[in-house]
């Protein structure tokens, strides 16, 4: 049995895994069995956390590296991963299917109330929907009219 210790006495905390060793197949099999034994509720939690992380990472991306992912794109991912029909979610949150389609296409925005509802349903901080929307609007506007905004200068205002 391994000796019980309180703290590592060395900075190295792992041993590099030899991926060609025989034990690797055994390890993979053990984890596959674990995966198979997960209940549906646990699988759902994994997907929800995976999607939450995707949204958090999107918010953290530098502007320069950001390819816009819309609220509709994220909603579609939720529908797809959780196998929920578009109309079922629309009905549940009290939106007409046509308005929900507008949300997916980006022609309708998420409001605060909807962000709270989606936050509750998908176990997320409600703010994340609004933050993504604001980030996307900022990036789009910067791309479209960034040069135009550079015309505005404090100097011109004072001296004009």
């Amino acid at each position, binding site marked *: 049995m*391994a*000796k*019980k*210790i*309180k*703290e*590592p*006495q*060395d*900075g*190295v*905390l*792992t*041993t*590099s*895994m030899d*991926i060609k060793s025989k*034990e*690797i197949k*055994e*390890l*993979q099999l*053990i*984890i*596959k069995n*674990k*995966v198979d034994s*997960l209940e549906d509720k*646990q699988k759902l*939690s*994994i997907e929800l*956390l*995976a999607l939450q*992380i*995707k949204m958090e*990472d999107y918010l953290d991306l530098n502007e320069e590296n950001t390819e816009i992912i819309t609220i509709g794109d994220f909603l579609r991912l939720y529908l797809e991963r959780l196998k929920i029909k578009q109309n079922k979610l629309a009905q549940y949150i009290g939106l007409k299917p046509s308005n929900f389609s507008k949300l997916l296409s980006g022609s309708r925005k998420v409001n605060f109330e909807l962000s709270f509802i989606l936050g509750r349903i998908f176990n997320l901080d409600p703010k994340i929907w609004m933050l993504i929307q604001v980030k996307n609007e900022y990036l789009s506007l910067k791309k479209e009219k960034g040069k135009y905004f550079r015309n505005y200068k404090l100097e011109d205002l004072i001296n004009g």
Partner: protein
Amino acid sequence: MYIFDKQTNRLIEAEIVLGTSKEMPVKKNGWNFTWRTIIKRKETETYILRLKSNITSIQGVLHLKKLEGMLIMDLVEIAPHNIGQKNKRYDYVAGCLIAFACRESFKLESSYKGFVTFESKTCLINWYKENYFAQIATGQKIFIEPIDGEKLINTFLKRNKK
């Protein structure tokens, strides 16, 4: 995320980012691995944990690799000044790195999503079990399952500064 400064008893803001060869710690400063070589390994990712207030101050390094859709926390090293109970400067460094690996595992597009595997040093097996919910698979090969990975993410990466 925060790590705990044992000298001042304060939480200090830290971040984990992909490292570059230039900023990797070196053996002459008391580190065990030649990180500048390790970082060049193909199909792997090497992350550094550093203070936000001083980005050259590296507190730990994490090396991840994937095998057939499975995430392996291949190498983890904490800075020489963060070792031991008495003399360590910053606490929670290992926890943050392990929790970060768990977080990365949720990005996998395979059936191993949410699982982190690694090979422990024999003497650390119980430490991993007691502190990080690790489970033994076979020999020294260990894994952390999604439900426990989420707990570690919440504990170490989402800690609030009081």
